[in-house]
């Protein structure tokens, strides 16, 4: 572990802290429908969309109407992407002559992008036409992220409104987030990436002659634009198969740093928007702090683990000072890769700039655990915040009891209905993560896709379903997806998205309908260090304990065996 490594981590964290307030303020203005600079410029476009689509943007929806709108929208998106992928061979903008995508892969990919997971069972440069990339995948990158933010805003409204029947209008939230938040920032990011050498072209691949005289196909395309939203929207679906490890996606240390910031930007900003909307920024900072604590711990463990070389290689006489460089890009180094791995799995981004499979067991376990906790460490845009609020509800429930009051969060009483919905949402993740892993490691079609046996192969399977259910989309690598995996991973992604969204919106509806109690000295304050510690503990114990047996049979036993000199 080097000084510059710590400096990088600290510099990154300081940048995240610095971005939080301005972004939070802007997000609130957009989602509360207030006046802002961009509104004057892009306002006509927004109103044009409403007119064209017949949306009455100020007609409020109840939680169930809101949820139905979300699902209808997602179904339409799924059908559109699926159709596009199947027929891309006969559609324009296909300079490399890609054929239509196979049904199971098209289904898997469509779900993956609609749920903001961006699990990629394919290699982009050899599977997708430019039209599929731009009209299918990049568009979903925008709207699935916008939908996440919209839902988060609706949930916050549930907490801020009193005795209300509605929680906002999904269509307005969706349009506003896309137009005012995602698009402008992405334009800036894409231009920056182009400046740093990321391609942005509609031309096909270029063939070059190498020094050895062989011919090499260099894939090109509209990379920069997809790259921007891939990070900002915590989507993670790369243009190329190796994602951000590819020099055309992520050419240098600067783009690497900016990409990581883009992953956390909106997740962090939303905590501040939460604080502003509930009328007390400290409430937002409390959430930010709990997330930041978990982020920093994860980063330190990964960095520590990767900065030490595999002890068995050391024993063979290899210089340990470089750390574990297997599967990492030299232009990012240990810290650039370890930090990226933590950030991309804290948030449900799933972009990768190094092969997580090649991390040492504990280094690879941190991304896994981050996802098992439900992607609540800044998390996916929107989904991180509402996922965190589920744990906050459990924490507040226990804390409230321990101070002798019916538990309340932000003045809203937490009662049987909220607990029921919270548990429903919390339950679905371990169900699909563990359930599908248990299935995959015994059926032949599941086993055949694993690249290795033993604990490491087990971790591959566990990582895949965890990544899918948590809507992360990063892969441990090593896995060769086949129809069995495509189908089951698709189900895991759907459950992980919708079995959380619907209960969360139900909670928002129930909260909005409640009265808000003014805080008294007898109320447990939710903006203090004690709350931060408590909710962190709840996330680790409630979110983490479930997975301990599985982790023991994967990375933990692998680590312990490595110390004893056994590799898998």
């Amino acid at each position, binding site marked *: 572990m080097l000084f510059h490594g710590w400096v990088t981590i600290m510099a990154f964290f300081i940048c995240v802290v610095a971005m939080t307030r301005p972004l939070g303020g802007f997000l609130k203005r957009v989602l509360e429908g207030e006046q802002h600079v961009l509104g004057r410029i892009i306002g006509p476009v927004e109103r044009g969309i409403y007119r064209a689509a017949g949306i009455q943007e100020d007609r409020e929806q109840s939680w169930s109407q809101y949820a139905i709108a979300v699902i209808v929208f997602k179904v339409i998106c799924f059908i559109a992407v699926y159709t596009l992928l199947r027929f891309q061979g006969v559609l324009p903008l296909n300079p490399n002559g890609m054929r239509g995508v196979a049904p199971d892969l098209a289904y898997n990919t469509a779900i993956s992008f609609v749920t903001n997971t961006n699990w990629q069972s394919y290699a982009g440069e050899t599977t997708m036409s430019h039209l599929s990339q731009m009209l299918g995948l990049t568009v979903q990158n925008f709207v699935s992220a916008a939908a996440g933010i919209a839902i988060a805003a609706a949930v916050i409204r549930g907490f801020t409104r009193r005795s209300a029947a509605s929680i906002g209008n999904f269509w307005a939230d969706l349009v506003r987030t896309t137009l005012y938040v995602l698009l402008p920032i992405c334009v800036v990011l894409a231009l920056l990436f182009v400046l740093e050498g990321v391609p942005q072209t509609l031309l096909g691949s270029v063939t070059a002659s190498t020094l050895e005289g062989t011919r090499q196909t260099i894939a090109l395309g509209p990379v920069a634009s997809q790259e921007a939203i891939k990070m900002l929207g915590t989507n993670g679906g790369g243009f190329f198969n190796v994602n951000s490890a590819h020099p055309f996606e992520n050419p240098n240390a600067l783009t690497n740093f900016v990409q990581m910031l883009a992953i956390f930007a909106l997740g962090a900003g939303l905590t501040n928007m939460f604080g502003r909307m509930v009328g007390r920024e400290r409430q937002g900072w409390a959430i930010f702090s709990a997330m930041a604590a978990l982020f920093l711990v994860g980063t330190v463990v990964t960095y520590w683990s990767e900065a030490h070389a595999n002890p068995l290689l050391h024993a063979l006489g290899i210089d340990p000072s470089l750390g574990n460089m297997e599967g990492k890009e030299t232009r990012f180094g240990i810290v650039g890769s370890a930090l990226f791995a933590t950030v991309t799995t804290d948030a449900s981004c799933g972009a990768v700039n190094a092969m997580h499979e090649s991390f040492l067991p504990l280094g690879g376990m941190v991304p896994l655990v981050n996802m098992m906790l439900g992607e609540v460490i800044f998390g996916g845009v929107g989904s991180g915040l509402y996922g965190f609020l589920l744990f906050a509800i459990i924490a507040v429930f226990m804390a409230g009891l321990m101070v002798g009051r019916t538990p309340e969060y932000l003045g809203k009483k937490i009662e049987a209905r909220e607990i029921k919905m919270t548990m429903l949402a919390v339950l679905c993740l371990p169900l699909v993560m563990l359930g599908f892993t248990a299935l995959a490691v015994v059926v032949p079609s599941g086993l055949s896709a694993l690249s290795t046996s033993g604990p490491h192969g087990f971790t591959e399977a566990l990582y895949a379903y965890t990544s899918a259910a948590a809507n992360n989309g990063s892969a441990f690598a090593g896995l060769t997806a086949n129809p069995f995996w495509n189908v089951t991973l698709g189900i895991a992604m759907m459950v992980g998205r919708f079995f959380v969204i619907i209960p969360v919106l139900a909670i928002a509806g129930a909260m909005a309908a409640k009265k808000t109690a003014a805080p008294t000295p007898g109320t447990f304050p939710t903006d203090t260090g004690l709350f931060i510690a408590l909710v962190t503990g709840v996330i680790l114990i409630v979110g983490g304990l479930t997975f301990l047996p599985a982790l*023991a049979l994967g990375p933990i036993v692998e680590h312990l065996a490595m110390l004893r000199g056994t590799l898998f």
Partner: protein
Amino acid sequence: MALHLPHSEATHGGRSSEHRSQSSLMQASLLLPAITESFRKLDPRIMWRNPVMFVVEVVTILTTVLLVRDIIIGGTHPGFAIQINLWLWFTLIFANFAEAVAEGRGKAQADSLRRTRTETLGKRLLANDDGGYSHFGLYEQIPAPELAVDDIVLVEAGDFIPSDGEVIDGIASVDESAITGESAPVIRESGGDRSAVTGGTRVLSDWVIVRITAAQGSTFLDRIISLVEGAQRQKTPNEIALTILLAGMTLIFIFAVVTIPSFVHYAGGHISVLILVALFVTLIPTTIGALLSAIGIAGMDRLIRFNVLAMSGRAVEAAGDVDTLLLDKTGTITIGDRQATAFVPVSGVTEHELADAAQLASLADETPEGRSIVVLAKEKFGIRGRDMNALGAHFVPFTAQTRMSGVDVGDRHIRKGAVDSVIACLGEAVPSVGQIRQIADEIARQGGTPLAVADNTRLLGVVHLKDVVKGGIRERFAELRRMGIRTVMITGDNPLTAAAIAAESGVDHFLAQATPEAKLALIRSEQASGKLVAMCGDGTNDAPALAQADVGVAMNTGTVAAREAGNMVDLDSDPTKLIEIVGIGKQLLMTRGALTTFSIANDVAKYFAIIPAMFVGFYPALSALNVMHLATPESAVLSAIIFNALIIIALIPLALKGVRYRPVGAASLLRRNLLIYGIGGLIVPFIGIKLIDMLVTSIGLA
């Protein structure tokens, strides 16, 4: 017949009764029935109410079936399996035992009430010719259970009141010790706020005509019996929410455990159902699951011991949430009995003369007002006590009709009493009536109560009785403020007087010249801002407010309407008890929260005991996780399951007694409880499991 059994003597001083009840938590006489009961409760139809323990029962039955099968087939070493099975059954029985002990205490009280309930005969009056009833009228004697609502009965001195009702005629002193434990008789009269009578109480003097208001089976006494028995116990809202949380946790751990065989199969190992069940039972929150209903029952029981009947568990929970406390000034903030503070004579009478007459009239008057007059006379003028007999004086006690008391010395008749009553007695014609009225009005304006004194037909003056703020009430209010509860004093006084008393007592806010409508409006406005309101009241005009309040404590001395409207009845009719009721409500929730936290925190240690034991057979490297250095995989699993069962027994006293509530503010309370039950819950099982492991290894159980 009394609620106050030897082991549950509740007194007015709530704190002392709490102490006393704790010493008898686990009475030997209650234990035996509880043990029988804990076996009876193994019935799955009863278990079903508690999802966590029901799941334990299902898996226990499963392992027992497997054990029997193995024994029949002739499995190798059933010893270990038998032990695990036994401890699984113990876990269930211990959980039932906790509930049975909690219920047992209430049952004992109910039995005693029932034993002493008398089969009373009621004198049902027959209507006169004009349709009215008179106490000279004809009546028929019928057994109390046959009385119907709206029957009219006569109750005379010495009779038991056959059922709950309302006095429609007459006035009587009634011994209500059967219900309240208070031996001093109370006055019951028609009209006004003292008209309710309770079945099972006894008329001591005079007579009343009562209209029966409660059908048999729903009388106050019936309700007490069913309440203390817990027969009508339903899960409270918070208990339901917690049950859902625990059921959800149980489900999560089902996923965690049922997926293990597949993982193990992949790793090339093997795992028995027995070990999986052991892991599952130790992981799911059995500790809180086992104790949850005991905590609820014990919370109700604490109130009953405190002589407060909560009509629902919901009310007890709401009490813990109270944000605003409405307190009647008289009797709560001020000493209900006013104290004499000045003698104000009419012109032509000296203060000394007035004091002397007032003292003489009060010598034999045992009421606090009377005593305070004697004390004031002594302090101001050094008038000492005189021997009534030597003076040949004859005391005239206060009666409800005259509303005066006094003394006859020879032909000298000294009377003191309400100004209007004294004037009414003497007639408007006597001199100084105008001046007396003027003085009385002035005193009333200051918030005091005037008491006129007359010597034969001569009005001497007025004794100024003043509200005296109770000692220590200021500290109580400060305590409530720290608890986060706002206090509002309700008084009929004018705003000036109210402000003076509010300032003196340290109450946060006051509502002066309060009418029932104003009271109701205040409650509504507090509730509209999301606050929970508690109040107590006794009058019929309090009934709407009592019904509206989230916690309405009706005084047992109050009217039927008030008792019906409230969701708690205070048998001692002591309004200051609201403060303790809030504490009991908080204690109930805290105990649940603390044990839930403890239960979940325990899981960490259990994982460290069982995971290495489960997997070490095929992944020897995992023995590094055996941080407790438990002797063998078998001893590790056995120790974990034994700890899991014994901790239930160990925590029963805490569940029944409740976690102590301190009014120190939410944050420090949470910090304290998190430290004890959270961090403690992490550490204790590590130590406990290790100790049990050493024990079972040394005696060769595993």
